[in-house]
């Protein structure tokens, strides 16, 4: 049941009708049933995995809450983590590691065929597994109370708008919204409508049209592609994956908003980031903050000196890459981002660019235009926009520190006139990383990378590609730049009705007329 399918909107219409007529408790029961129907529509057999995860973490959290003995609490946490990671590992990584073991042993001359299984990857397993794990760890750390009501907890795990592709909600954010009665305000409807239309536009118009270019070019023999065609392939993929994933997240937020839930924003104009640190406060925020809180910091964060910090950064990003799937391309993608963070860590504070930009920033206020989005959020959260979403985003950003977000915000906040060229440069570095993420294998990525820097021959295909990217991508770029500068992703929902009407008409027109014939699944469903 895809967000960009009629069946989903029919389903959601029924859910919304029932929701409006039920009391709070009834709403939660109905939402849980609806969430299981939503998930079961893919493959009802995998409902058992959600139920196991729910049961294990519900019991583990309650027992952790009851026990005073530190060892017993640790054992319970270990059981919960093993169960969750065990399920995830089996379904997602078993075949990968079995095959790699076979390759490794044959490389050293041992004949061994590790068994591989015909396993179907349950949709969204990485998302709900991380969400339930964060709950149990938070209970263990004393940051949240264990939930007594199994129904409320089951709904926290399976809440359908964010079940299959996030955002990975923390219990501290979502659980209060489940256990307390919710009110749907008029502004929730407007903001939800904006988020849904904008999300559908990004998915259907941008991502699915880019998919035609991406799938075609990545299906070519990479040696037959010219350098500009390789660049077009990665630019198009950068747009595709952004439109696809941020589109999903926006629709999820919009759908939840119509029921009075406020989900965290998962994307905040990431391609305007000027530094690696800033990028990870803007791209897949719920995953990057999860990795920070439950992996990077437990590994020691930046407390053990430069070498340990760099090791922790690399390890966190490589594991973050592996979270996306069992393939070397994802590992290399994580490694590239890890290296960018390490490089930034090693150079940012002392760099001439940072010092000159600070000087320019003070002298030439015009540069602040480009920084407004960052500068606002780098100041106290009290001064910024007051929507719940924005607070939530700021909460994460301010709570975030170190290389996965911290100093980058400070450096990023004072980049001034340098922001534009740095953002452009960093966007290209991100694109190089995307090449490994999307390519069929690392070999293809390396060949394409080589051609990107050694072949400069234009072609009709390249001209078509760049024109398509501009045709579909320019409106999103301009609109997002405006929202970025104004530091508010819900701004259009608060503009005059005539302006809203015209923007909605443009989005609806494009949705009606520029949806490709093929209906593509959301990319992140496979993760």
């Amino acid at each position: 049941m895809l967000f960009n399918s009629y069946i989903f909107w029919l389903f959601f219409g029924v859910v919304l009708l029932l929701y409006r007529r039920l009391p709070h408790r009834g709403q939660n029961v109905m939402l849980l049933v609806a969430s299981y129907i939503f998930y079961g529509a893919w493959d009802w057999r995998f409902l058992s995995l959600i139920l196991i995860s729910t049961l294990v973490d519900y019991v583990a959290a309650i027992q952790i809450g009851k026990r005073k003995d530190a060892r017993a609490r640790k054992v319970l946490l270990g059981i919960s983590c093993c169960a969750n990671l065990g399920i995830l590992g089996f379904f997602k990584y078993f075949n990968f590691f079995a095959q790699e073991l076979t390759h490794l042993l044959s490389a050293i001359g041992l004949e061994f065929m590790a068994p591989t299984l015909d396993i179907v990857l349950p949709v969204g397993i990485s998302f709900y597994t991380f969400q339930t794990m964060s709950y149990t760890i938070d209970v263990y750390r004393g940051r949240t109370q264990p939930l007594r009501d199994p129904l409320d907890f089951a709904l926290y795990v399976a809440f359908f708008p964010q079940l299959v592709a996030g955002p990975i909600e923390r219990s501290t954010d979502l659980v209060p919204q489940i256990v307390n009665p919710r009110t749907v305000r008029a502004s929730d409807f407007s903001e939800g409508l904006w988020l849904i239309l904008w999300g559908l536009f990004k998915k259907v118009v941008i991502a699915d049209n880019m998919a035609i270019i991406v799938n075609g070019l990545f299906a070519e023999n990479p040696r037959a592609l010219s350098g500009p065609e390789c660049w077009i392939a990665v630019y198009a993929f950068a747009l595709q994956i952004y439109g696809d994933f941020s589109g999903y997240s926006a629709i999820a937020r919009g759908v939840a908003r119509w029921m009075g839930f406020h989900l965290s924003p998962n994307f905040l104009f990431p391609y305007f980031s000027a530094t690696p640190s800033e990028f990870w406060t803007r791209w897949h925020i719920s995953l990057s903050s999860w990795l920070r809180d439950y992996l990077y910091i437990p590994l020691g964060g930046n407390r053990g000196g430069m070498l340990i910090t760099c090791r922790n950064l690399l390890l966190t990003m490589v594991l973050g890459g592996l979270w996306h799937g069992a393939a070397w391309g994802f590992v290399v993608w994580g490694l590239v981002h890890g290296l960018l963070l390490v490089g930034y860590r090693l150079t940012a504070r002392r760099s001439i660019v940072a010092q000159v930009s600070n000087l320019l920033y003070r002298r030439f206020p015009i540069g602040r235009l480009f920084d407004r989005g960052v500068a606002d959020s780098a100041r106290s959260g009290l001064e910024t926009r007051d929507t719940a979403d924005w607070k939530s985003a700021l909460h994460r950003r301010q709570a975030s520190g170190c290389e996965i977000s911290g100093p980058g915000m400070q450096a990023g906040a004072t980049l001034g006139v340098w922001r534009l060229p740095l953002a452009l440069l960093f966007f290209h570095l991100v694109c190089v990383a995307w090449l490994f993420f999307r390519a069929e294998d690392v070999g293809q990525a390396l060949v394409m990378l080589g051609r990107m820097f050694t072949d400069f021959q234009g072609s009709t295909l390249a001209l078509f590609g760049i024109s398509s990217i501009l045709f579909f991508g320019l409106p999103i770029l301009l609109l997002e730049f405006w929202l970025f500068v104004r530091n508010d992703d819900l701004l259009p929902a608060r503009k005059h009705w005539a302006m809203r009407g015209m923007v909605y008409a443009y989005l609806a027109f494009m949705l009606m007329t520029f949806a490709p014939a093929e209906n593509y699944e959301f990319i992140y469903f496979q993760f």
Partner: protein
Amino acid sequence: MNSSTSNFDATGVVERPPRPVASVFPRPSGKTLDGTLQIRSEIKAVLLTLLVLLCADVALRLAELKLSNDVRHIRSLPEIARALSSGPTPRVVFLGNSLTRFGVAPAAWTSALEELNVPKGSMAKVVPDESTMPDWYYVVRNNLIEPGREPDLLILGFALNQLTDERLQPGRLGAYFCNRQNVRELFAHDLPGLGAKCDFLMGSMSRLYGVRDEIQVRFGDAFIPGYRESVQHLNKTRLRKSAPGNLQTTGGKAHSYALLERALKLWREKGIEVVLVAMPTPYEYELDPAVAGMAQSAGVRLIDARKLAALTAEDFPDGYHMGKRAAEIYTRYLAESVVDTLREKAGAE
């Protein structure tokens, strides 16, 4: 540097204050309109959106007859059917798409019949662009299957997998080829799943939606250099990767021909003689044995004209459709192939 960042830097621990479960989640406040005003404002915005879309739809409906020869042709189908029914026998309909539009030359047909000593009768071409089996079924059903209007001979030209059910375009079907009387049959047999049904309904209500493929091509041609050839190239590359071998196969999956089967049955019931023709194209394509089997069991003749010896690559100037010389050769070939049927039909009158 804000305080939480400092804490993080110093200790590696985020000092997020524990939030009790029962705490109220932060709600928006401040710069929002009063609820009723906001609802009214939102209703106005939605109404404006609908109005703009409605205007665009009406404008498209008014302009499409001027902008598109194909739409003019589709709109004139009832007129074509009336003219044919009042013409002399044998009445022949050439059904197909642009392949048939370019490939059948009326003058060559008439002169071939004269040379073959067959009464020239009357002929019509029913050839909406990019139409396939689902469109053909409903075009014939709604325009040619009426008492007294049935043609004597229906020559259906196809290529590739155009006879399969998979070539369904529900939006376009709703926009141009079907009417309310078809809805029950469509929903029962031809529109699989809710998505296709909704597509059909949207297409029947909104012209923007129904002809979105055409709009995409027009915009693409206008704003994106190399649009058509690049999209075709990318799609072919992708298909080659996913289904190596012949691009026209389904990669091992069997095609479905339920509509063709129903069409043949209906046309036979109405006394229409049917000939299926696998048309010449500049490249090779497979002829699914299931089509031959179905034609045989329905008592319908299948002419394999994929490789006419007289045709060369130069006879397809745009790389797909036949040029004038090819059309003449192909039309004469068709006339010679169906001459017996024509004599029989002419004699029956």
